[in-house]
């Protein structure tokens, strides 16, 4: 089931005018910000489908930038997000794409600074609910509703067991898990959605595994 909580239906509390094109866009932007981990120097946003056709009217541009500035769906600063981004020195570029995507409300975000860059694709599936479907070329499925761990690791035996052992030791229950890789034996990505918040000690433990390259956590 895509919708698991009554508050997906009665909610979110948000700044208008559209749950999918405003609140959903803000959430996609905010997950991108979480994944990047800090304020980026630039944000390049591409809109597809209904997002591309109607983003001005729905404030999708304003909302997604609001999310990138770490604002929640009900944060009234969203209304001024474009000028706030300018003030904070975040360069914003928005492109309308013609390409057909699987879902009508699709956005691609590239966030970066001089040290790092991430690229993700998010979809807004209705009522403010979103999914992240691609990250740095990896296919994935991330709701952003639960705390989650994103672990970049070598595609070798024992990687999943190593991470799962640490989670078990800390009594963390896994709600959803997915592993994807670009090519056999190369870099792989593990996405683990969990039920409770994740302690920084646990992150350090996972990072210390020889097979692991990078760990990012996302919290609700």
């Amino acid at each position, binding site marked *: *089931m*895509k*919708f*698991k*909580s*009554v*508050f*997906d*239906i*009665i*909610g*979110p*509390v*948000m*700044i*208008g*005018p*559209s*749950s*999918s*094109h*405003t*609140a959903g866009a803000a959430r996609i932007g905010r997950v991108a910000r979480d994944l990047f981990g800090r304020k980026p120097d630039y944000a390049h946003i591409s809109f597809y*489908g*209904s997002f591309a*056709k*109607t*983003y*001005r*009217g*729905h*404030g999708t541009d304003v909302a997604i930038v609001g999310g990138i500035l770490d604002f929640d769906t*009900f944060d*009234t600063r*969203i*209304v001024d997000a474009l000028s706030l981004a300018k003030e904070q020195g975040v360069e914003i570029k928005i492109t309308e794409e013609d390409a057909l995507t699987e*879902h*009508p*409300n699709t956005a691609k975000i590239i966030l970066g600074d001089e040290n790092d860059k991430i690229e993700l694709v998010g979809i*807004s*599936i*209705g*009522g*403010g609910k979103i999914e992240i479907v691609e990250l740095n070329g990896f296919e994935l499925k991330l709701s952003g509703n639960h705390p989650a761990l994103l672990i970049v690791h070598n595609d070798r035996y024992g990687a999943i067991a190593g991470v799962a052992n640490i989670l078990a030791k800390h009594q963390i229950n896994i709600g959803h898990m997915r592993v994807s890789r670009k090519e056999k034996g190369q870099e792989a990505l593990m996405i683990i959605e969990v*039920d409770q918040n994740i302690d920084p000690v646990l992150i350090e433990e996972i990072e210390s595994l020889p097979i692991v390259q990078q760990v990012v956590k996302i919290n609700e």
Partner: protein
Amino acid sequence: MFRNVAELVELAEAKECKISDIMIEQEMEFTGRTREEILSQMDRNLKVMEEAVERGITEDVKSHSGLTGGDAILLQNYLKSGKSLSGEFMLDAVSKAIATNEVNAAMGTICATPTAGSAGVVPGTLFALKDKLNPTREQMVAFLFASGAFGFVVANNASISGAAGGCQAEVGSATGMAAAAIVELAGGTPSQSAEAMAIALKNMLGLVCDPVAGLVEVPCVKRNAMGASNAIVAADMALAGIKSRIPCDEVIDAMYRIGQSMPTALKETAQGGLAATPTARELEAKIFGIALDKK
């Protein structure tokens, strides 16, 4: 756990409780949160709805485009004249639905039910009922869980997105949700709630999503008005004992299939329907400062 309306009604009947109770129990089970936490979050959502309604019927709210705003007040004033044809309760609900959507269009704070574009129907009917039936705060919160239960089924088995299923998936779903919750608050049975949902949604099937200039304003605000009135009539019909010949779950399924076969131009792309009328195109050009021949 319930996956469809039939199971929802069955659970409520077996446990001799309300639809809203089943929704609260399922939420506790799914999230591991306590009843108090869940009830207080819904209470906060109710407060947001109340504030949006209040703002819309007292303040002269205007959207950035200037397309919508002020109609809720017009209706409230008309109501006071005592000349209304459709009756005070009906028009009160309609004006409060409009109020919510006018606040939404003005980028004000609202609670999506189930979406922002359809956020007027549920609170509109609820806050009109507040004056008519004098419910307790707990009963008003329960109203939101009851409507949420039906919305939950629609969201998982069909769609609540205009871009995926047209306006029938948004205002249509909201109308069905409100109709079912009105029945519960008015003392009807769980199966009467399901009948009300079916009757309400049947009358919204095929409704396309064709927002002028892509804005959640025209015709969205007035569709919420009609959704509120439709919900009240459907609830009354169900309370009178009228049944839908097509079961609620099959109506939801029909809505899903209609949404799938609806052309993209009529699913929140502002390319067809009212959005493609000459007046809509003129308004669009004016709002965004684009020359008409460039469209």
